[in-house]
């Protein structure tokens, strides 16, 4: 069992001792805090963004964090939800990851409560119990992740620093199928806000609506069956600002293992005509904006093309 040094909690705030050890060694190898710091009261909390889809989206920093944890399992406690676990296992086979999936299946516990509880639990594990915690999340930790937001706020309130390993966000995959010029900006909203919270869009800028078709404000998207319910509401709200034949692009992923960026262009009036897959988004071009921004872009090729073999064939 990994032994942690603990100081008596009395006499001074948690900040009275500032650990000067850095969590990253030269050459980028990540070591748990306590390996260097013999007097530090607290453990550490590292949020690791693992990218939105395929293992090759992970940053080197994230890969190193996973490899450090698998090499020294007694020093780290690793936690994650389903998709993040699958990605991490692909990079670091044998890594013991504690599954947080149970938070989605507790009676009487909605998503906001589950995320708040998760934040309380992980900050406690790190800063009160003194463990070195890795919290694995899919995509970028900073885009639409309520648990990460709650962890950051809690840690700040406790004057504790967390380590954040950035990850590629889903936006990169999604923007693959549009030609966004950037000339009139870009608005980012949850489709839920528009459909149910009465948020009006700026029709002069293109908008990306995430969490399309999800039927709970906090990302309840286990299957696509219930998506038309929200799509109908969203269509009606958008119709107050956009004409029925306004082109919109439904942007989604083909899912594992390829996660190709898929898209279809439809008229706004047809938005609720068929369900959308889990993890869908809606691109709403601006009114009067460039046609290019209302066009479905050709898919990019994933394979590396070897120019020589292309010529030979």
């Amino acid at each position: 069992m990994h032994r942690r040094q603990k100081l008596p909690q009395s006499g001074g705030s948690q900040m009275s001792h500032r650990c000067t050890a850095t969590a990253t060694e030269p050459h980028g190898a990540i070591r748990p805090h306590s390996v260097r710091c013999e007097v530090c009261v607290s453990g550490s909390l590292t949020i690791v963004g693992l990218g939105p889809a395929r293992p090759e989206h992970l940053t080197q920093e994230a890969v190193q964090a996973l490899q450090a944890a698998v090499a020294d399992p007694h020093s780290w406690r690793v936690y994650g939800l389903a998709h993040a676990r699958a990605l991490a296992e692909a990079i670091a086979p044998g890594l013991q990851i504690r599954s947080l999936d149970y938070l989605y299946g507790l009676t009487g516990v909605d998503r906001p409560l589950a995320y708040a509880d998760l934040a309380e639990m992980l900050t406690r594990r790190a800063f009160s119990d003194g463990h070195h915690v890795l919290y694995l999340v899919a995509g970028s930790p900073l885009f639409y992740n309520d648990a990460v937001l709650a962890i950051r706020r809690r840690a700040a309130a406790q004057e504790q620093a967390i380590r954040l390993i950035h990850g590629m966000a889903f936006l990169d995959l999604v923007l693959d199928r549009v030609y966004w010029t950037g000339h009139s900006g870009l608005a980012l909203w949850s489709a839920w806000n528009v459909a149910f919270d009465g948020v009006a869009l700026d029709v002069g800028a293109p908008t990306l609506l995430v969490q399309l078709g999800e039927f709970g404000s906090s990302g309840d998207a286990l299957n696509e069956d219930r998506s038309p319910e929200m799509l109908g509401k969203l269509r009606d709200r958008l119709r107050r600002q956009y004409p029925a034949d306004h082109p919109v692009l439904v942007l989604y992923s083909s899912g594992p293992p390829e996660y190709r960026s898929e898209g279809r262009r439809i008229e706004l009036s047809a938005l609720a005509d068929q369900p959308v897959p889990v993890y869908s988004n809606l691109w709403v071009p601006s009114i009067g904006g460039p046609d290019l921004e209302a066009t479905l872009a050709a898919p990019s090729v994933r394979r590396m093309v070897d120019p020589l073999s292309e010529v030979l064939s």
Partner: protein
Amino acid sequence: MSLRFILPPGPFPPVDPPEPDTEDELSDDFDLPEPETEFVPAGERLDLGAVFRDRLYTGHHLDGPARSALQSRLKEALESGDMAKGAEVLAAWADTWSLSAMVDDANEQWSTDPDGVSLSVLTRAAEVIELALGWKTGPNGPWPWPDAAALRAAVGAIDPERDCVLARHPLDGAEQLAEALGIPLQVGNPLALPPHVLVAPEELVERRAELGAALAEGTYTAVVLLGEPPDMPATALARGELRLEGDAQVAVDRHGLAGLLAPDAPAWTAVRAPAPVAADAPPTLDTVLDAACDGALVPGPPGRIRRGDLDTVGVLLWVGPHPPVWVAPVAVHVLRGLNGTRSLGQLAEAMGAPPDALLEVATELLRVGAAVRV
């Protein structure tokens, strides 16, 4: 007059003490520290756990008396309109087939070298036995507690001067047994179990942080709740954290203290697998098949019975580690007609069935491993 120490039938089917070491083994163990000296009271021992384990957790009991008792209980439940009970009893009845093939090995394994699979099999057997005998669950885990008559029969004549109950864990039911038998209680050596802590259910939420920390630190492998905590979100979240951090918590929640000995016990549904199937060409009217399992007609699969919808269905039942398969009644009729000698064409004629339809059913039976080619 020598004393008789009666061990209660809890908190789970006992693990037999190891056989005395042989001289060879002793010399192998030469470098190991001396085992701690235990207080073992002198006198005769009656381990009720072992008595009921070896009497009830057997293939013979499950495919004989337990199955017949469940049949009567199913009838009673359906006649009284208790559909939830009916569904539960039918599922238990159907499981007596696979259990009858698995329980003796599980019993042997658990008694000598406990592991997760044997625990899962014994736990399912415990649920089935409890329904069959109409006993109540004991003080911890899913283990049925014998009724007064069964206890007295197992103990035989009682002599309060000579007999006493030996308590080895607060949850082994010793007090309950001493009271039921009207004999004194004596505290014996505690059961050797991995570190755990007993917690009153109403304390769970307020002690959550402390318990979570102790589990994460490895001070305990599980928290054993002394009852059901109040049903509220804070309880569900606290239990979630215990399961997240305690190495044996999931197993203990499912199997009681026995889970401490087999933290990796799989779910019962993961213990059985579909029957093996031979990859052959589709049968023709010349093919001769034999049945590889039993078939029965019952008032519906459990899910439908629970909804109050009673209609005859067939069920294919293996005396092996395979789950039952619910089928149309005709499949059971065909299965019963397979005898390993006549061809499917002859069977179609004997049953007065259209040959194509019979071939379709036979193909299905082969596909689920219920029939084999001869």
